């Protein structure tokens, strides 16, 4: 993976991170009144995937679940619209206040809304892919992956050899319950037993990059180990010890990273301010 590409990924991740920091602060001071599911810490999965996929000139159908701000932003969703959804503004909202943080929908980027029942996006995404035959990316959490209907649907997607990419954003947590309490098996192995490609990796862009040659050629599942920085819902932090991929990448990129972060922070802060003024 060359440095130019890595910078591109970092720019997207920076947009997501600075968005989430604003969302965190505005939730903390109660400007945002609905529950929000922050994706800070997990930005590099969608940021890398969208960069690689767009480079292939593919605009996939996107199915995600509640923790999806970074998915939406990385795949080109309008930041202004997401702010409006979080602020629950009835007049300006694309979904007339129905969307919120957990059910983000965008026709422009072909992202389909989520109903809030974890894991339903997997069979639904598979049905959409089967019928349209369009490249489809489906995100799920490490916990959603355990839903019986997710497992049953994965098996069917494998049988039908769909052009679909399953991404498990594995932050090791279901709210606060760790994976080892819930299961003794691994999703990449489940995928393999269903006779599709299955890999376990971390969210370093360099790692994700290795698998792009298989994207949408056949069903594949990537279990990407990542870290959630904040609470399951709302603005809070459980620990300062959590590994932060964003800081790691920023350090790796050195002064370029610093400059990008600063520039994007200013831009994102400004958009939030402007949107708030409109309401």
């Amino acid at each position, binding site marked *: 993976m060359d440095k130019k590409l890595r910078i591109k990924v970092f720019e997207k991740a920076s947009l997501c991170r600075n968005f989430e920091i604003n969302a965190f602060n505005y939730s903390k001071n109660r400007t945002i009144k609905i529950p929000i599911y922050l994706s800070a810490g997990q930005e590099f999965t969608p940021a890398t995937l969208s960069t690689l996929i767009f480079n292939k000139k593919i605009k996939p159908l996107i199915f995600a679940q509640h923790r999806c701000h970074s998915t939406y932003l990385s795949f080109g969703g309008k930041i202004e619209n997401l702010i409006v959804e979080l602020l629950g503004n009835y007049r300006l909202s694309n979904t007339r206040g129905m969307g919120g943080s957990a059910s983000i929908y965008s026709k422009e980027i072909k992202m389909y809304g989520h109903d809030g029942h974890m894991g*339903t996006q997997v069979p639904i995404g598979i049905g959409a892919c089967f019928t349209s035959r369009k490249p489809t990316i489906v995100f799920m959490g490490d916990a959603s992956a355990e839903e019986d209907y997710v497992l049953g*649907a994965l098996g069917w997607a494998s049988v039908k050899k769909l052009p679909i990419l399953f991404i498990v954003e594995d932050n090791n947590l279901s709210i606060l319950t760790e994976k080892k309490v819930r299961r003794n098996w691994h999703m990449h192995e489940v995928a393999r037993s269903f006779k599709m490609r299955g890999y376990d990796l971390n969210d370093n862009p360099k790692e994700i990059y290795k698998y792009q040659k298989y994207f949408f050629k056949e069903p594949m599942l990537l279990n990407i180990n990542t870290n959630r920085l904040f609470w399951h819902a709302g603005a809070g932090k459980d620990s300062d010890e959590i590994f932060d991929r964003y800081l790691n990448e920023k350090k790796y990129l050195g002064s370029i990273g610093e400059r990008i972060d600063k520039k994007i922070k200013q831009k994102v802060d400004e958009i939030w301010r402007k949107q708030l003024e409109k309401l």
Partner: protein
Amino acid sequence: MAETVRETIKKIIRNHLKKKKGKVFGQCLTAVGWVGGTLPELYEKDGMIELSMADVAGGGIVTGSALMKNRPIYVIRYQGFNWYNAPMIVNYAAKSKEIWNTPCPVFVRGIGMEGAIGPVAGSSHHSLYFRMPGVKIVSPMTPGEYKKIYKSFMSEEEVYYVSEHRGSFNNKKELIDDITGTKDFVIIAISITRFQAIEAKKKLEKKGYKIGIIHILWIKPFKISKKALKCVSNSRFGGIIIDDDYVDGISNSLANKVNHLTNKKIFTMGLSDKSAGFHKKVDNLPPNADQISNKILGILNNAKK
């Protein structure tokens, strides 16, 4: 010669696959029986899609297909399976238009049947869908009704739960309301009970009673003509709603509605509040003509006291 309901459904499905390029999803479709002879002998290349036995996931896969504007038909062989098939249909397909302005129309063929098939699969479970917003519920029992509801589905963007019953598949006749003149009592019948309700009416009329009958096709939204309502409000002793589901659902809700609209007492009758067994003595069948007429006689006798 007139067509049966079975032949009508089969024709509609062939047309849906071949002309409309739609899809039909379900389990074990392309096997012996072809779902009571209601499916044409077509395969995956024609759009007849075999789902795996993952029932809950199956409903989701169909929902995803509907998101792609494919208007899928989803075959559920026994209505009791809906406890597993319905979740994503009612929570996603039926909400998608309202929440995201993205229609997700699915035509669910829930097929009812009972008689020595045990505690969970049989009967009509349309009440399961009834309490959720965004779903339309119809129960066609005649060829004409089936054609009408398919046409209406194709012209709209809604989720339809079509409560079928195997007992109607041989039927060729249209069923007609009797709401003329002043009635002593009016039967409002749903699904397969409509056939036995007609017999019950005959039995009661032999005893000298004037009995009206109203056939319900549209359960949600509930469609009943003004003339039919007038027949109930002009009746001497009110009416009864009869269904092939437990009464704590559609029947009791609709009875309440008709009561408000007509100011008449509306009774209900459906499955007994118990699990069905396999032996005749412990089965749980929809009310037959004798049971219906006896229940009505009891009501009439009480009312006259």
